[in-house]
């Protein structure tokens, strides 16, 4: 069924929502899905950001929060229960800012560098978000 990889580099809620839905559904129909969260896309998983729902949003994102749409984090957690999906955090950003895995919500399978991620995504369709 193939392999789908996504680089989550944006902290915009709308983009994270869209990416999480596509990734999750793909993971449940037999695709191997790999996500790499980096830059603002990684910051969106920080515990304090998640607790305060302090994501960058436009009108649509505000509406999603008001309507209690399933959040990307919950969608990804559910996908991990039932699908073939792995989520990695970018080690470079964490080193740079002195952050640890514990500073983020409990969702990452590992902390990786770019070389390791590129090795994993060989032969995959890669989307950059």
């Amino acid at each position: 069924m193939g392999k789908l990889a996504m680089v989550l580099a944006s902290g915009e809620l709308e983009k994270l929502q869209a990416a999480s839905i596509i990734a999750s559904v793909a993971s449940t129909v037999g695709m191997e899905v790999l996500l790499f969260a980096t830059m603002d896309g990684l910051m969106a998983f920080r515990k304090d950001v998640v607790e305060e729902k302090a994501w960058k949003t436009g009108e649509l994102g505000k509406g999603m929060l008001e309507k209690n749409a399933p959040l990307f984090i919950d969608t990804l957690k559910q996908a991990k229960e039932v699908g073939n999906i792995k989520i990695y955090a970018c080690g470079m950003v964490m080193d740079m800012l002195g952050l640890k895995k514990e500073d983020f919500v409990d969702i990452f399978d590992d902390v990786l560098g770019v070389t390791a991620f590129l090795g994993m995504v060989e032969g995959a369709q890669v989307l950059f978000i």
Partner: protein
Amino acid sequence: MQGEADRVIDARGSYCPGPLMELIKAIKEEDVGTVLAVLSSDASSAKDIPEWVKKAGHELVGVFEEDGYWRIVIRKSR
């Protein structure tokens, strides 16, 4: 009622992909042959769940429009 089910998943009020994710979790727990019904008030789920069922290799018994929601009935096939 058309499309009786062994198990009903009430996902009304939840938005995409909530109903689908709840269905997938339930499917994992049940045996092959079990008939499951998902109730969804979300129109996009009513369209997308049958697509998922096809792709995942299960049988779509039917999509029934009820009063303000859809009842999507499927049989676990593998």
